[in-house]
């Protein structure tokens, strides 16, 4: 009996989770949703674990035009790239695609806003030391309800009735077998 209990408990956690999947983004500079208040020279993305050499990223502006990135390097879990020319203020997105050490392909994007002072001006009127003053977290579009509440409810009732019918049939079959 003891064995059964042990086996039962063991089974509860059996195969607890053969994790074979993705390496996520750990942090980035600029961070997602941040407002960058200085001229942007370099972008660096830090991942949770080692990423492979063919990993890359692109920087696009509001009109989906690519900004040229030079010197894109991957070292262990950090990917960096430099921006040579100064770029205009506005909303940007970093589109990254990497391959983790476990062989999985992962894409992601980081949105940020560039709000750097114009270089020529001598006096910086606003000095903003805190880059993350505004968070532009945009939740993924809401899932639209395909079915109305009532429709899905009747669907479920039909399924439940079907299950009960099958159950009744099975019980009947078993008792019939017994009486033979």
């Amino acid at each position, binding site marked *: 009996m003891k064995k059964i209990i042990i086996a039962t408990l063991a089974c509860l956690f059996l195969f607890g989770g053969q994790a074979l999947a993705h390496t996520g983004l750990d942090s980035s500079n600029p961070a997602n949703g941040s407002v960058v208040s200085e001229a942007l020279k370099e972008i660096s993305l830090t991942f949770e674990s080692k990423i492979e050499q063919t990993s890359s990223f692109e920087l696009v502006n509001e009109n989906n035009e690519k900004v040229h990135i030079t010197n894109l390097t991957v070292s262990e879990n950090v990917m960096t790239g430099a921006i040579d020319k100064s770029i205009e203020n506005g909303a940007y997105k970093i589109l990254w695609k990497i391959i983790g050490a476990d*062989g999985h392909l992962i894409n992601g994007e980081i949105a940020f806003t560039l709000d750097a002072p114009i270089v020529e001006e001598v006096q910086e009127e606003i000095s903003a030391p805190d880059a993350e003053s505004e968070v532009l977290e945009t939740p993924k579009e809401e899932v639209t309800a395909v079915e109305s509440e009532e429709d899905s409810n009747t669907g479920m009732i039909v399924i439940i009735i079907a299950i009960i019918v099958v159950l009744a049939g099975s019980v009947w079959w078993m008792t019939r077998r017994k009486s033979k």
Partner: protein
Amino acid sequence: MMMILSTISEALLYTCFALLMGSYIFSLIPTGFKPDVVVSRSTKHIAVIGIALFSFMPLINILTFLYADYGLSQSLQSVLLTFEVGKAWLFTFILTIILGLFIFFFDHKNSKAYSIVGCVLVFLLILGLAWTSHARAVYGWQGFITHVLHFAAVVIWVGLLLVASWFSKNKDNWLRFLSWFHLTAIGCFVIISITGLVLMSYTMELTDYPNTWMISYGQSLLIKHLLIIPLIGYAFINGILMKRKLRAHSDLDPRPWTKIEFVLILLIFAATAAMGQQSPPLNLASILNFEGISPLFGQFYTGPVNADITVQLAFQGYGLLLVGLAVIFLVLSILSFFRKMHPLFSFIMSVLAVISSYLGLMLSVQVI
């Protein structure tokens, strides 16, 4: 489509491992303690080729991804020579050639030393598979060892079950076979459960488990766990009830019931393989942001999705009813053994128990 293929391929890969390990361990057992088992040389060769091919599947995913940017030869070169998965596959490939030649030249010899060499080669292949696991990628050596232990225990236990139920010529010595297999299986259960829990804790806070049901990885893990419940039932039937029954009726054939147990394990393999294709809930909020909720979960929840939602369980109404039905199906699946029903009938009852309990849980989910 690619995802379904990858999942099937991965589940078959585990089966090939189990078949080889099972057949080598079986040949180490003294004759009086096992049924007559024949795993032909060509079957073993198919399993070896299976390991080489199915373990290449993840690389095909990467190659199709890189192909557009780098061309075939360059992407093949960089994947095989610089990527962790590529290097691990080369290691696996070389080992499968060695194992294939070993089977060709030495396998027919009836010596324990050859079986031990076979076990060692399969174990080295397990190391190759664990090398590219998520656990090692994130947790280094500790993750690697945990994964190796987890997978090795699965392969040993399932392998013995597979070989005994599908490759035995007769049911001779079944009681004496059970006397050691039952203990081995329990030992493997314990290892699998502990390492499984550790692996699970690598990907989530265990208290967050219901929250992970919102994404595909959590759905697969939930289905896997639900499948394990009837598996306990079959372990009970095949390990304990069968012993009693065999003592009373020695003409009974236990093998159809162990075959059913193995088929259930195949389903668990498939759920595990599906998890390998999905993002683990290390950062649940960002997965919800980028990928949205799991399509399966979307069948039950049509409200708004954002990073802050959490899941709670509140059993009532239909949900409770379905959980109750699941319990009845589970009882039926075990009762059918006593009623001498066909094992397939019992299997269908088990699957219905899993479906009902899944629906019951999903209907009881409350998103806050």
